[in-house]
C-alpha cells in the first residue's frame, strides 16, 4: 500500500485541523504538511531551527536552502513553512469562478487547503513585526496553467491580507551561501554537542586568538587548537563552526568555505548587531 493518500477527504482535513496544523507561531507552530504527509518530489529534510527551536519540515532542497538563508538573516524572527491559507474560504469574494473551482476536490467536494511554502516574520529596526509570504517552485513549473492559477489564488489571498507575497525559484536562492549555512548550522548551540558555554569560554577565546594571529591557513589554526588545547580531534572544527554560527567571527559566506584559505580571511565581529537585514520585496 502506498504510504501517501492523496485523496482529499473531510476526515483527513479534520484530523489536520484537530492536530493544530497551521496554527500557532514560533515553537508552537506545526506545518500543514510534513515529510510524512505528502510524497516529496525532491529530497526531504528536517532541520532543528535557530529561530523557532522546533523541527522544520522541508520537501525539497530549494525549500531547505531558502530556510537556511532565513536562518542566517538576523531580521527574521519566525519561519512558518507550509503555511495553510485556512481562512481563504471566508474570502471567496476575491476569486472568480475559474479560481473558485480550484478550491474544491472535484470528486469529493472536500476543500483543498492551499499553502504558502513560507510565512516569514521579520522585525525591523524600530522593532515592528512584519510578515511576508513566499512560494518556492522550480521556474519550469510556472509554465503550467494549473500552477499559475493556484498562485493567482494565493496572490489574491495575501494581497487581501496586506502581506507581501512572491515566488522564489532556484535562481533566486544563493546555493553557495545556503550550503555554507547548512555546514555550520548545527554548531550554533554547543549544548547539543555536550559542552556548556562556561566550560569552553576559555577554549573559544584561544581559538579566536589562533585565528587572529594565525600565519597559516584556517586548517592550521584548527589543528593547533586540537593538539594544544582540546586534545580531541574535530573539536576545533566544531568550535570554528560555532563561532561562525554565533556570528562571533565572519567569513565570506558567498564563496564556498575553504579551510585551506588563510586565517586572515576571517574577521572578528566585536559587537553583535543586526548586520543582516532581509530585503523584502513584493
Amino acid at each position, binding site marked *: 500500500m502506498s504510504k501517501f493518500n492523496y485523496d482529499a477527504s473531510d476526515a483527513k482535513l479534520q484530523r489536520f485541523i484537530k492536530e493544530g496544523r497551521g496554527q500557532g507561531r514560533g515553537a508552537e507552530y506545526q506545518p500543514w504538511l510534513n515529510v510524512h504527509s505528502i510524497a516529496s518530489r525532491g529530497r526531504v529534510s528536517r532541520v532543528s531551527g535557530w529561530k523557532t527551536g522546533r523541527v522544520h519540515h522541508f520537501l525539497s532542497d530549494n525549500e531547505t536552502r531558502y530556510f537556511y538563508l532565513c536562518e542566517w538573516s538576523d531580521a527574521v524572527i519566525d519561519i512558518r513553512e507550509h503555511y495553510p491559507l485556512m481562512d481563504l474560504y471566508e474570502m471567496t469574494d476575491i476569486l472568480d469562478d475559474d479560481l473558485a473551482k480550484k478550491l474544491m476536490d472535484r470528486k469529493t467536494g472536500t476543500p483543498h487547503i492551499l499553502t504558502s511554502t513560507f510565512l516569514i516574520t521579520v522585525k525591523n529596526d524600530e522593532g515592528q513585526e512584519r510578515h511576508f509570504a513566499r512560494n518556492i517552485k522550480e521556474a519550469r513549473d*510556472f509554465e503550467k496553467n494549473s500552477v499559475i492559477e493556484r498562485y493567482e489564488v494565493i496572490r489574491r489571498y495575501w494581497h487581501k491580507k496586506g502581506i507581501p507575497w512572491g515566488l522564489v*525559484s532556484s535562481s533566486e536562492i544563493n546555493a553557495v551561501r545556503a550550503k555554507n549555512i547548512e555546514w555550520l548550522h548545527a554548531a550554533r548551540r554547543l549544548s547539543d554537542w555536550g559542552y556548556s558555554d562556561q566550560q569552553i569560554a576559555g577554549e573559544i577565546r584561544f581559538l579566536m586568538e589562533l585565528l587572529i594571529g594565525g600565519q597559516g591557513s584556517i586548517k592550521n589554526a584548527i589543528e593547533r587548537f586540537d593538539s594544544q588545547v582540546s586534545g580531541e580531534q574535530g573539536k576545533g572544527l566544531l568550535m570554528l563552526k560555532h563561532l561562525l554560527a554565533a556570528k562571533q567571527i565572519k567569513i565570506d559566506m558567498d564563496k564556498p568555505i575553504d579551510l585551506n584559505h588563510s586565517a586572515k580571511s576571517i574577521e572578528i565581529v566585536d559587537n553583535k548587531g543586526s548586520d543582516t537585514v532581509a530585503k523584502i520585496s513584493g
Partner: protein
Amino acid sequence: MEWIKIPNGTLAQVAQYSQQIVSQYEGNMLIEALPPIMSKEEVVQALSSYPHFDVEERYADSHYRFHMIQQLLGYFQVMPLHIDLENRISRLIRQGYVNRNPIQPNYASQMVQGYADIQRGQIRQNIQISSSGLTIVGVSGMGKSTAINRILSTIPQIISHSEYNGVELSAYEVVFLRLECPPDGSIRGLINNFFVELDQLLGTNYMDRFGKNTKLSAASLMPIVAQIARGCNLGLLCVDEIQNLSVAKSGGAEKMLSFFVTLSNSIGLPTILIGTPTAQSLFSDFRIARRGSGQGDVAWLPMKKSEPSWRLFIEGIWDHQWVRNPTELTTELNDTIYEASCGITDIAVKIFMFSQIRAITSGTETITPQIIKGVVKDSLKLVEPMLNALRSGNLNGIARFGDINIAPIDGFIAAEQSKLDLGNLLQTFQKTQKEQQVQAERLKQDAVVRLTLLGVPEKEAKHNVSKITSDMPQIQNIQEVVQEAYKLHLGLIEDKQATSKTQPQIDDERDLRKLVKAGKENGFTAYQALKDAGYIASDFSIDTGSELG
C-alpha cells in the same frame, strides 16, 4: 495392522491377506490385502461424521460458540446414495484387480507390452481386458468430492507386499489415486499431477524424470503413465473437477478423454470421473467412447423435500444448535430452509450455521424463519442465480452455474462479529457524546455568569459566549472562553468588517494568468513574465551579494 514407512514417501500398510468369500477374488494378493467388504451398517458407521456437541456448550460466551458452530462444516450425514457409492467403488477396485494378478503369467506380459508401448510412444489397445468406471455428475455443493474422500479414507492408500504364500516379492499396491483436472484442461497438467501425487506417496522422482522433461510430448508420456500405473498396481484413478475439460484449450477435452479410455482399456484401470453438470456433454461423449462396457453413472441431484434423505439430513443437523433457546424443527422452519437452499447440502449447512450466528449476535438466541430469511437475503447473493435456476428446474440453467463456489463463510462471521462490536461501540459513543454536550452547556452557562459579574449584560454575554464556542471550538477552558468573550465585549476582536474596509481592490491587471499569457505573446517564458512583473522575490538573493542586500 502394521505400517511401514516408505523413504521420502508416506506410510504404507504391510499387507495382510484374508480369506476371500467371492471365489473370483481368491488367490489374488492385490485383492486379498484389501480390507474386508463392508456391510451397510459398517458403511454408515465408517462414513458418518457429526460434530462434537454438548448441551452445556450452549451457555458458552458467543465468541466461543462461533467456533463451535464452525464444526458444522464437518457434518456428514450418510444417505442411501453414499452407501450405493461405497458399494460401487468397492466393486470397481476389486474388479480392476481381477485381471491383474502378479502371480499370473499375463501380468508379466502386460509389463513387457507396456515397455514396447513406451518404445513406440503409443499405447496399443488391448481389447481383451474389460475396463470399468464410474461417472458422477452433480451440482456444486452436493458433497460429491466429500463423499468420495470419505469413502476412500476407509481404504488404505498404499499396501506393501513383501511375501505372499511363501513367495518373496517386493511390490507396492497403490489402491487409489485422486487427481484434480487442471484448470487449463491440459493433458500435461493432469499427467504432471499424476507424477506429483505418486512421488509424494512413494518417494519416487517421476516428476523430475518425466514431468520436467520437455522433450517428451504428452502423447509419448501416456505409455509411461500407463506403465507406472501398472508397476505400482494402481487400483483406482479418481479425477475430480472434470468440467475443467470443457473450457480447455482446443483439443484438450477430446484428447484427455481418449487418454482415460486408453488407460482403462489397456491396463484395465478403473476410473472415476467427477464433475458438475457443465461437464454433461463431455460425459455423454465419454460414455459413447466406452460403449460396450457396462458402467454405472451417478447423477447427484439436489434433494427433494419429500425425500427421506432430506429429512435425515435436516433432522441430523438440527440437533446441533448452539443457541440458548433451541427450537424443534417445525414444518415452517423446514420449508424455509429447504426453499432457501433448494436441497443443496452445502448451502443448507451454511444457512443453518449463519442463522445460529445471527441468532446469537442479535440476542434472540433462537432460530426463527425470519432469521433464516434474513440470512439468506444477506449472504447468499452470490449463489442466488444458481438457486433460481434450480427452482425453475431448468437443467441447462443449472449447468451454467455449475461451478459457483458456495457462499464464503469467513466473511459472514467477521461481519456478524463486527456488528456485535459496533453495537457496543455505538452505545459508548452515544454516551460520551451526551456527556460532552452536557459539559459544553455547563461551560457556556458558567461563562455567562462570570461575564455578567464582569459587567457584561446577560443577553450580550450569552451571544458572545455562543459566538466564541462556535467560532473557536478548540477552546475548552472556561477562563479562555470568558477572556475571549470579554474581548469581544470590549471590541478588541476585530470583526471581519474591519478588515474588509481596508480591503484593497482586486487588481485584475496584476492577475498572474494575464501576466503569463501576455508574456508568452511577447515570447517570454512564464518565469520571465513573472519576474518582470515583480513577483519573483529576490530576498537573500545572489544579486544583492552583500548582507544588507
